[in-house]
């Protein structure tokens, strides 16, 4: 099929884990399909990343230029398009991350590439690659076939495979930047850190987490009572913070916080992968949801499939009673 290109993702001096996850998956692919794994690193002052990536790939293509100090979709797109034209890989993998989805669709249109987003797995059917993705927030899986000739382009979901230990010694090949000067209509200004709140939920031992299932702000009272009974801090899904029931620093998930409490009680939360990513490391997870197919149950230790409004008052009452 050709080589597998993996775009290295980094920000603020940190190489992001999704890069190593993709390289791990790519290694499995080339074992079956032939070709090499190629990490594509675009940046400035990131030599240490090139060395790290060499441990995970057959080759590192390193575009090292001050033009790429900060990520910029326009510049990345230009560089990737040139590299794809020059090296003609079989498959290009970009993380399905806030960076990847800001970049990949435009690249797919520009180069007219067969393109599938948010891929969670790559299967082989009759010797051909089939990307698997999901619909309806994880309730349905779909297999796709690429119809045209490679290169193919996918965005690959974070945390679907575990990064292996480094086991290669790829060669680092410096590539001259196809871009010679600043271009375009988009300029990076700065990063603004997330707001900090009164409670740091990443430090909480017990968390009661609330989702859209409680329907209305006034029902937060039920959550507060339960939290009081078990001395928990309150956090929530994005739906809960968007609705204004909680402040944004209490949001758990990819665009919020990653928490690892002793106990996490999820109430009326469906368990979108962006939420699961932030809480599946909790030691014990209790989920209350009336939908038996809710993905939250895939990570739960205790499942209560029922109407939260019927379960919560009694749960709180009983907990108070037992704890005196």
């Amino acid at each position: 099929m050709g080589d597998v290109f993996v775009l290295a993702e980094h920000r603020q001096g940190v190489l992001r884990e999704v890069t190593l996850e993709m390289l791990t998956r790519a290694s499995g692919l080339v074992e079956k399909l032939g070709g090499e794994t190629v990490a594509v690193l675009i940046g400035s002052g990131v030599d240490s990343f090139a060395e790290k990536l060499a441990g995970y790939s057959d080759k590192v293509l390193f575009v090292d230029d001050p033009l790429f100090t900060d990520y910029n979709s326009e510049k990345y797109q230009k560089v990737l398009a040139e590299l794809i034209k020059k090296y003609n890989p079989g498959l290009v993998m970009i993380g399905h991350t806030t960076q990847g989805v800001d970049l990949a669709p435009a690249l797919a249109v520009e180069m007219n590439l067969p393109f599938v987003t948010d891929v969670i797995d790559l299967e082989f059917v009759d010797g051909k690659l089939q990307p698997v993705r999901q619909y309806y927030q994880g309730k349905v899986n779909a297999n796709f076939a690429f119809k045209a000739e490679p290169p193919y382009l996918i965005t690959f979901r974070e945390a679907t495979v575990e990064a292996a230990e480094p086991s290669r010694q790829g060669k680092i090949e410096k590539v001259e930047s196809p871009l010679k000067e600043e271009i375009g209509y988009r300029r990076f200004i700065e990063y603004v850190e997330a707001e900090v709140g009164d409670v740091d939920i990443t430090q909480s031992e017990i968390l009661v987490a609330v989702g859209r299932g409680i329907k209305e702000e006034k029902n937060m009272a039920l959550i507060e009572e339960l939290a009081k009974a078990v001395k928990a801090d309150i956090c929530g899904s994005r739906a809960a913070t968007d609705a204004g029931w909680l402040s944004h620093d209490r949001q758990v998930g990819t665009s919020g916080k990653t928490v690892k409490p002793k106990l996490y009680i999820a109430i009326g939360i469906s368990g979108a992968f962006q939420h699961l990513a932030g809480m599946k490391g909790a030691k014990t997870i209790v989920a209350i949801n009336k939908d038996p197919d809710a993905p939250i149950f895939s990570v739960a230790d205790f499942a209560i499939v029922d109407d939260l409004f019927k379960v919560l008052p009694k749960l709180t009452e009983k907990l108070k009673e037992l704890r005196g």
Partner: protein
Amino acid sequence: MKTFVCIKRVPDTSEAEVKVDVTGKDVDSSRFSFDINDADNYAVEEAVLIKEAKGGTVQVVCMGPQEADVMIRMALAKGGDNAIRIDDPRINVLDPLKVARVLASVIKSQEFDLVLTGCIANDDGSMAVGVALAEELGVPHAAMVKKLVVEDGKVKAYRELEGGIAEVVEITLPAVITIQTGINEPRYAPIRGIREAQKKELKVLKIDDLGLAENEVNAASSLVELQKLYIPVVVSKAEVIEGAPEEKAEIMAAKLVKGGLL
């Protein structure tokens, strides 16, 4: 400011059981309830806020069936000026790049400063249409924007990254911005607006009206093809608590306390 906002009608499947139909390539949607896509609701609000602050127009674009007119009228009631709905069975709606091509052909034929889309559709979740649309239009973009400041001939967009960090970028107009939920507080449509919306123009177009050939947007022209849909096997290690609601509550409370989980 001439703003376009793209909205999609989506099923609410957060509580519904999803079943694959007999073809194995579609789902049985007969029992779903539908609404405007979450992020698009915020995009409509953002467009109307910009119009209120800077003047100009808001045009609503939607590809979808006649049932989507309810959501379109709602966007018009909130402050949209007119709307275009594209409804044509020849379009391969399964392919986000085809959706983008169609939306682009609507917008391209007119003057525009700003195009707002949602950053993700709740149902299909490709996170692809907005950025692909920008490339089709040949204009810059910023994806997943949680704060937007409109300045003279440019915008400052706060892209929300992992961990809630914002990447601030400055973009020259015209541009496409994909809106993240939580950027504003979507209003309810005022009664008067709902009445007025009935009189606003809503054009329904086919690809021929857009100057698109069938082989640019049909299934045969797509470079990927759906092979099969199936319900994933979910492995759960969870202990399922049984009984009436109160019994479940009691059992769970006992487990938490006696199991030393608190």
